[in-house]
């Protein structure tokens, strides 16, 4: 079943919880990162697990695939480190991991999903800025939240 990880930039306060948690579980290499813009805004940047993922389409060794939840995953065994995925990613996501000698990125917390846990960043964000779930349910939640706030 397709799952999405959606970040609502309007709710984010730049507290860095998502990045801190991701760094904790991935030992010093967070896949979600907060960037401070020149105007002083904090923007979390992470993989969008695109439906029509340019990285997956361009990869010469077919190292990138979608798992059962439609998360876009890099098979680091097959990756030759050519950087093509980074070149085409609209968010500049894939990152060369010197420890494994391959491109790596957010896998939507694959290990956690196997244990029926949601991605750690979405569970810990204090501001409910990171949504995770099946597209329709998620969109429903967001709309209901907005209705609540308008009332």
């Amino acid at each position, binding site marked *: 079943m397709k799952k999405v990880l959606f970040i609502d930039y309007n709710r984010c306060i730049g507290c860095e919880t998502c*990045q801190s948690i991701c760094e904790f579980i991935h030992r010093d290499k967070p896949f979600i990162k907060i960037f401070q*813009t020149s105007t*002083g805004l904090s923007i979390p940047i992470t993989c969008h697990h695109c439906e029509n993922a340019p990285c997956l389409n361009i990869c010469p060794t077919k190292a990138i695939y979608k798992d059962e939840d439609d998360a876009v995953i890099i098979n680091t065994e097959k990756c030759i480190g050519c950087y093509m995925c980074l070149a085409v990613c609209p968010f500049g996501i894939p990152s060369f991991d010197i420890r494994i000698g391959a491109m790596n990125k957010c896998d939507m917390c694959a290990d956690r999903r196997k244990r029926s846990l949601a991605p750690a960043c979405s*569970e810990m964000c*204090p501001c409910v800025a990171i949504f995770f779930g099946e597209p329709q349910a998620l969109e429903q939640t967001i709309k209901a939240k907005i209705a609540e706030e308008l009332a």
Partner: protein
Amino acid sequence: MRFAFLCRDKPEPSNRKIAIIGAGPAGLSATGYLVCHGHEVHIFDKLPEPGGLMLFGIPEFRIPISRVREGFAELRDIFGVKFHGRTKIVFGNKPDEGDSFVDEFIEFDKLIKDFDAVLIATGTWKSIMPKIEGGDLKGVLPALSLLFKIKCARLGYISWDNITPLKEKTVVIIGAGHTAVDVAIECMSLGASKIYMCYRRTILEAPAGYHEINFLKNRGVIWYELSMPTRIIGENGNVKAIELQQCKLSKPDKNGRRYPIPIENQFVTIDTNYIIYAIGQKLTPPFQQDIDVKLDDWGRIIVDDLHMTSREGIFAAGDIVIGPSKVGRAIQDGLYAAEGINYWLMGEQS
């Protein structure tokens, strides 16, 4: 927030008991880690509810109260975490003034005897206040004390009558960081008629960023850049006005930083009811006497690789170790400390 994000169900008990002093993000994330490793956790906090500054400092429009409450409810209901609220841990010293919510005082030494390990995660709660003529007048407030009271009222612990009345009042906020912005937004929502914000550099250097300051300006906040308070003028013990020295910026130094330089004889005076200082938090170690826990020159608790202090079995995490930071940094520090505690208690078994 799922503080126990590492697991879903309560694991087999380890038969180890840990006390956490301070239920802010650091204490709560450490708790989450520890319960996922089977430990029994008791949290002590002088406030009536867990959350630390997330609940009692940061405004509701940033962090929803319900999100913090749900997070602790899970720790309590699924993992059996015991919260001892309104309980201040004292370290030999006399109780402070103003611990208005505290019902019970527990000696640190007693706590150590009852638990296998103790984590100090007490944060930094003292605001920096300048030495300035008129600084002791009624109406000069630290930002955190105002935001704290507003949150106490929103959470239902005190009545709105106890909040500094802001309706139709003029407020001067000193500082241009996130806390200054928070104060401005709260003052707006509580009906202040005029809000000034003073900063010694320009909007381009404002720590809250150009975007946030511009947002406030568009909502009617009067932005006074390149100005520094020189004295506060009073009347019958109350604030009446503030005098600001006009400045210009120096040439960038070798780090590219530009400093405000006073322009001779250029002052402005603004009539106001309140002056709110939002220029940062001070480190406040929870103990005044020597309890064998070493501090660095800034007053931060020194910890080793396991996050243990200089005293065996006593750990520390969060802003009391790293200095005033952010929710995320405090959370991560709490997790590393919990990992250290678990390793120290369980060794290779962990």
